[in-house]
């Protein structure tokens, strides 16, 4: 298909392969005149921008030139990055050879012409840059003149040897593509001469002696050093000859397809099996020179195309300059020509309509306007797939951390002939070795059930205090007398505390004599003695009353009843009439709390409770709140109101007093407060509360909130804890594994998919709960199960977690389940993510 076009009567050249963007330089052709008969010469550089779908080329540089051109070439010679666009060499009439700096032309610089010599005789039609040393330029003109120019010293050229006799024109020069000191020249007589610049002489002359060859073009094989092609311009012999210098007596083969003389050829550097030719039969053909077959033909042009050139950088693109004054850029990959052709036709017509070069009021007859093609012209692409489309290597990832690779082997001796490998490698990629090692440890511990040792090793390995605490909590949670041990972990050992209290009170003082005001924690710790978990009895009113009873009986000696009008008197009187409530009220008002309490005990349960409440309302000491809560067994208050800095103490209270059935809930409440109100460290301490309560989901949630879990090891950190906790609960309570909450589900799914990505499919499977409503888990289970192949034995496959869709015509009435050899499942669960998807089965 046609990609770009420009109306120019010009010779053309592409920018070198290394240049980006791609440019096409045009220079006014010396061989033609257009209808304006202008002899002005211009060098223009167009950017060929394939991002732009339009046919326009954008002019990026324009330079008036002193001569028109027979030939343009573009080399990558340049001095430094400021000159990166290379050098354009132009061959003109009268032996003129001009060098242009492409960069200068593109930037409208002040010195676009970097050299100009008039050494040759006649028009300079043959030019070529050496592809190994980009400073070497070969040129050829009339009288068998060939010069080799060094761009670093562009004054005096050298010659490749003595002039060939008889003297004749040089139609083409070309450097060998493999051996840098080999140059060839071609002559209209049909002869080609190969020169060796080291010997400075011609080393071989080739000619088929038919005398009908009339060389218009010549090109070396891009890869085989000894082969070259010659094209013949002679209508009697419109052929392309392929020569091999090893058998230089006659051509290796001859490409015959053009019906009139061949004007130009171009050998694709990216694929030696592609050779372009244009001829006077108006056709542009692409050959596979190896088998002599035409593999592409551009639909017949309206005019001769005198120059075709592959684009060095974009291998599927070539340009064609034709005598109708257009330069077109085409792709050999096929496609439609219709739209573009029409635009060109329109442009041509309109350009002619405006043209009245002879000033006779007459427009030129539309001589060369191509037919208006209304229907689409489909140009088939190259019959032979070009080399550049043949992907030689590849890699792809597959489920389970598998890597699929294939490609060529490089035989070091003959790099050119790469042998395609028939093998495809399936490899296992393991990147997270430390993660896997730790995962295996965890797996072993979970399977053996020996979690205590596992925790112990974790405690020893812990680097952070918090980490150590966590593992301690996890471990203790599984042990007997876990609450006492947890208290110890919080820093409250009963034994040590007893010692402290004893020393504080002095020796010999009986335990029961110390006051409620004594260290609140002593109070907290003491009653727990003897009853590990069930501490409900200790703090109740009845036992307190016993305590005060004994105090009273010791201190009172004689009974005296006052009936005075002061408080004492009033109280006495109230008591006399059994008005306990009044008496207590009076005592309270007089701040005689002990009296009030004692009386209240006598006054009954209700009064005692009210009095306690009043007491706590009135007395505000540092520990009164604690006392209040303990006496009233209001653990909830403790949890809800305690200063978060003393969360450990609050947890200790729960450990000591709270009933088993509310213990977990209270721990969770404390944890929740730490999370929501606490800052920094405190918020992560909530984890300890959740371990105490055995709330795996909350533990996970809190952990995720405070720790990054995106890296494998961080995820491992989390999973170790939640799995140990979850397993320990399972073992202790004998219950089945608790169902996973959303956070845990997400983390465990991630963990399992990470394991799967490292190829640990069995381990991944073990973490995924069998019965989960979570679609993600079901999907992962399905995938991991089947990925394990036959190692799953005759285990029942998990249900297929997708709604099956039958593909194919209805005439196949077989249900998909039978036809599929894929790991099959009986259950067909309608997945919530595809609610609208309807099975298309018949």
């Amino acid at each position: 298909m046609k990609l770009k076009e420009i109306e120019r009567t010009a010779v053309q050249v592409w920018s070198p392969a290394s240049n980006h963007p791609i440019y096409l330089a045009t220079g006014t052709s010396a061989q033609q005149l257009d209808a304006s008969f202008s002899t002005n010469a211009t060098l223009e550089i167009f950017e060929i921008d394939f991002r732009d779908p339009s046919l326009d080329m954008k002019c990026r540089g324009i330079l008036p030139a002193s001569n028109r051109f027979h030939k343009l070439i573009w080399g990558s010679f340049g001095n430094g990055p400021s000159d990166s666009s290379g050098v354009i060499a132009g061959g003109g009439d009268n032996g003129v050879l001009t060098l242009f700096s492409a960069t200068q032309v593109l930037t409208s610089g002040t010195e676009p012409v970097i050299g100009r010599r008039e050494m040759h005789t006649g028009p300079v039609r043959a030019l070529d840059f050496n592809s190994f040393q980009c400073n070497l330029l070969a040129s050829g003109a009339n009288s068998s003149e060939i010069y080799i120019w060094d761009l670093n010293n562009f004054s005096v050229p050298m010659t490749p040897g003595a002039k060939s006799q008889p003297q004749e024109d040089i139609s083409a020069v070309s450097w060998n593509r493999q051996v840098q000191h080999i140059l060839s020249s071609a002559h209209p007589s049909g002869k080609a001469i190969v020169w060796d610049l080291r010997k400075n002489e011609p080393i071989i002359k080739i000619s088929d002696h038919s005398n009908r060859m009339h060389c218009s073009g010549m090109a070396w094989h891009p890869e085989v050093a000894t082969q070259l092609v010659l094209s013949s311009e002679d209508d009697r012999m419109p052929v392309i000859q392929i020569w091999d210098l090893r058998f230089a007596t006659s051509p290796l083969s001859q490409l015959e397809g053009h019906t009139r003389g061949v004007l130009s050829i171009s050998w694709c550097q990216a694929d030696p099996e592609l050779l372009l030719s244009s001829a006077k039969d108006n056709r542009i053909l692409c050959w596979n020179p190896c088998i002599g077959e035409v593999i592409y033909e551009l639909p017949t042009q309206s005019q001769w195309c005198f120059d075709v050139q592959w684009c060095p950088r974009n291998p599927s693109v070539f340009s064609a300059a034709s005598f109708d004054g257009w330069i077109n850029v085409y792709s050999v990959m096929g496609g439609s020509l219709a739209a573009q052709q029409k635009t060109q036709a329109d442009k041509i017509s309109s350009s002619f309509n405006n043209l009245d070069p002879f000033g006779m009021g007459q427009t030129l007859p539309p001589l060369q306007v191509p037919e208006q093609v209304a229907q689409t012209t489909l140009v088939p692409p190259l019959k032979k797939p070009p080399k550049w489309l043949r992907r030689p290597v590849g890699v792809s990832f597959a489920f389970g951390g598998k890597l699929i690779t294939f490609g060529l082997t490089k035989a070091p001796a003959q790099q050119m002939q790469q042998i395609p490998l028939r093998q495809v490698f399936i490899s296992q990629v393991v990147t997270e070795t430390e993660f896997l090692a730790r995962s295996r440890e965890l797996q072993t511990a979970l399977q053996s059930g020996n979690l205590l040792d596992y925790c112990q090793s974790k405690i020893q390995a812990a680097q952070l205090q918090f980490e150590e605490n966590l593992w301690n909590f996890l471990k203790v949670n599984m042990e007997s007398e876990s609450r006492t041990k947890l208290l110890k972990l919080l820093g409250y050992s009963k034994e040590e505390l007893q010692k402290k209290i004893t020393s504080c009170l002095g020796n010999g003082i009986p335990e029961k004599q110390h006051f409620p005001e004594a260290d609140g924690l002593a109070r907290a710790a003491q009653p727990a003695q003897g009853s590990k978990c069930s501490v409900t009895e200790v703090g109740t009113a009845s036992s307190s009353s016993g305590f005060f009873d004994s105090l009273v009986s010791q201190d009172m000696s004689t009974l005296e009843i006052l009936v005075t009008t002061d408080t004492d008197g009033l109280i006495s009187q109230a008591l006399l009439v059994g008005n306990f409530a009044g008496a207590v009220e009076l005592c309270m008002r007089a701040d005689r709390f002990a009296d009030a309490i004692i009386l209240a005990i006598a006054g009954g349960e209700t009064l005692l409770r009210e009095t306690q409440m009043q007491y706590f309302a009135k007395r505000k000491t540092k520990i009164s709140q604690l006392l209040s809560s303990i006496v009233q067994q209001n653990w909830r208050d403790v949890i809800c109101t305690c200063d978060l800095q003393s969360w450990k103490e609050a947890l200790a209270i729960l450990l000591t007093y709270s009933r088993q059935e509310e213990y977990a809930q209270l721990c969770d409440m404390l944890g929740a407060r730490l999370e929501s109100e606490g800052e920094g460290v405190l918020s992560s301490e909530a984890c300890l509360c959740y371990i105490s309560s055995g709330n795996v989901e909350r533990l996970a949630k809190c952990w995720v909130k405070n720790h990054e879990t995106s890296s494998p090891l961080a995820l491992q950190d989390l999973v170790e804890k939640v799995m140990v906790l979850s397993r320990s609960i399972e073992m202790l309570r004998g219950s089945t594994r608790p169902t996973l909450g959303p956070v845990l589900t997400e983390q465990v799914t991630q963990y399992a998919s990470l394991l799967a990505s490292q190829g640990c499919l069995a381990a991944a499977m073990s973490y995924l709960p069998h019965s989960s409503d979570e679609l993600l888990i079901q999907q992962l289970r399905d995938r991991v199960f089947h990925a394990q192949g036959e190692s799953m034995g005759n285990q029942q496959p998990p249900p297929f977690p997708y709604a099956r869709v039958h593909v194919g015509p209805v005439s196949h009435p077989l249900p998909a389940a039978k036809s599929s050899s894929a790991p099959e499942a009986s259950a067909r669960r309608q997945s919530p993510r595809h609610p609208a998807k309807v099975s298309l089965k018949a």
Partner: protein
Amino acid sequence: MVSVINTVDTSHEDMIHDAQMDYYGTRLATCSSDRSVKIFDVRNGGQILIADLRGHEGPVWQVAWAHPMYGNILASCSYDRKIIVWKEENGTWEKTYEYTGHDSSVNSVCWAPHDYGLILACGSSDGAISLLSYTGDGQWEIKKISNAHTIGCNAVSWAPAVVPGSLIDQPSGQKPNYIKRFASGGCDNLIKIWKEEDGQWKEEQKLEAHSDWVRDVAWAPSIGLPTSTIASCSQDGRVFIWTCDDASGNSWSPKLLHKFNDVVWHVSWSITANILAVSGGDNKVTLWKESVDGLWVCISDVNKGQGAVSAITEGQQNEQ
């Protein structure tokens, strides 16, 4: 570590152009210049040829497995301008659909996320991208983007299925309102992102950084983050990682992963999207990973399926 666990001798008579595992990683499909597509059962290190599919008349460039909810379905594309959808029925593989609507070589095929239905995107050297959607009862609907890439499209890759907002917010019983996107790379050196709007495919973004043909594009699988990531590789030897953080999908920024000395043919993300495999013309396969400080580091050189894996150390440059 990269260690070979299975070496499959495909017996292809010419160059292999693609090899892809199915969803479960138990079957391998290969295609070659010998015009055939082969399917092997590779479970447990074995290799049993299940099918040798003939139908293409040119080199077969790529194969793609559909999601198993549609059965066992494989698509292949070829220089012969055809796309063939193969299906296993009662243990035999047969052609279930053939599309011949392209004017030139079809270079790439990629199935859309299964949530969208059975949709195949195909990129061709005629510059067009076609979208083949299965509409039921053996019927396929074709949508075509002409002139997607001048001179040709070399690669297509779908964005993972992401619903704007949370899945939970979706009214039950209704099909979630997916935003469908895919990326393509072509001979115009561009990567383009296409988005479906009201049933029409529109060019949403043009990503420019390569100076030569884009050989492959790979949209990274979703790992639940709002960032979208695309890897691209080119004839110019460069591999770029493109990321886009905003949900509207408008601001993509490239990061050069590496400049190789030769053409880079393939890029492929691991399922968990954290490793990128790159295969180049120098017949080298390398694995790359992003370090914590955002640098892409080569962690492995894979030769004949084997290689060591190095850990990312701090401050390591992406030298290679």
